């Protein structure tokens, strides 16, 4: 075992007297010592657990600085604190790990955490509204009444003044035109260049 840096003891004595600069130097100097010691003591622990034990040791060192006797070496004092207080932190970490699931191990693409499972629905609705607006007036009126307002053919006929037969034809043609506009001619089942501009009689 190599002899410890004599400055550690000097800095700790200065820290007991309230020297903040030396205390900062001391804590910075012991940080790699603590990380190395923690990794050696708990080789199975992950990085977060090691860092937790290191920080717990630093806090305990701060609380226990009145206990340090300058007649004794500093590193055994520091590692003694890590053994007990860092060990407490490690036990807490393991207990928490046994009953909790770290949130960052859940796949980012999981659907379990999503509240809006159809995020494109709004876009499709807007496209549909735009396509309906492009329909000839007769077909647009028939679609609005029978599909959007969900009226019966008789009610739609009474509202629009169109006959039931004319409503059926206009709705059929309107739907076919919408399908072509939304899905393309191939998907819609025919090579049609654009919306059907034949209005219902």
């Amino acid at each position, binding site marked *: 075992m190599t002899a410890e840096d004599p400055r550690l003891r000097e800095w700790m004595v200065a820290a*007991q007297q309230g020297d903040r600069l030396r*205390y900062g130097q001391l804590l910075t100097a012991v940080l790699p010592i603590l990380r190395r010691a923690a990794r050696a003591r708990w080789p199975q622990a992950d990085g977060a657990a090691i*860092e937790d034990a290191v920080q717990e040791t630093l*806090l305990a060192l701060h*609380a226990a600085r009145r206990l340090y006797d300058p007649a*004794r070496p500093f590193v055994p004092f520091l590692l*003694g604190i890590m053994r007990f207080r860092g060990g407490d932190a490690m036990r807490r970490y393991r207990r928490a790990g046994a009953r909790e699931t770290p949130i960052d191990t859940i796949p980012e693409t999981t659907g379990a955490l999503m509240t809006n499972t159809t995020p494109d629905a709004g876009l499709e609705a807007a496209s549909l509204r735009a396509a309906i607006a492009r329909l000839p007036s007769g077909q647009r009126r028939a679609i609005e009444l029978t599909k959007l307002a969900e009226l019966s053919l008789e009610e739609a006929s009474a509202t629009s003044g169109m006959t039931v037969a004319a409503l059926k034809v206009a709705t059929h043609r309107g739907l076919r035109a919408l399908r072509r506009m939304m899905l393309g001619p191939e998907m819609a089942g025919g090579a049609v260049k654009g919306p059907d501009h034949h209005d219902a009689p």
Partner: protein
Amino acid sequence: MMHPEGQTERLIAELAGALVPVRRLPPPAVRLGYWLAVSLPAAAAVAFAFGLRPDLAARLGESGFWIAGAAAMLTAVAAAYAAFCAALPDQPDWKLWLPLAPLALWLGTLGRQCLLVLSTAGAGGFALTTDFMCLPAIALGGFVPAAALVVLLRRSAGVRATNACLCGGLAAAALGAAALRLYHREDAAIMVLIWQLGSVALLSVLAAAVGRTLVERPARRPGTA
């Protein structure tokens, strides 16, 4: 408390920025001296308050009385020293076992007395009687030593608090039992073994169970001494 990696440097800055001077704690041997300076007069005062036993002069001539008494005193001293060491992180574990040697001597002395009684008086020497005075007498004799230990340990309880309390309880109870020998006339060795050592064991375990709450000060924010 959990800090994600990378925040340790910030924690160091916070701790350093909140540093205040502290008064260094004396070594365990010095604190043992403080404890004895308070506890021995207190235990002696309890013995004198109850009145010294009438056969004390005769008993002082027996080596067995001296050995058992010295073993009880040594147990108290070693246990108090172990309690002060237990609370320090850089003290080795073997020091926590120091009281076991005089405790074994104490037990051995009393056990030997039991065997002597068995060989001379037969099984009749083991007639068990109740001696309810032991527990409160030892508790009373050990009260000031225990209170002094709580005060001294409260200034130092950093680690191994339960071990420190167990050793501290043993120290106070052993000192109370040592004082008890000066004013209480035991009937038979077996009674001493059961009632006195039983009381010591009970008080020690009790101290280990509840002492932690007495000696551990609540966690303080960085920056407070």
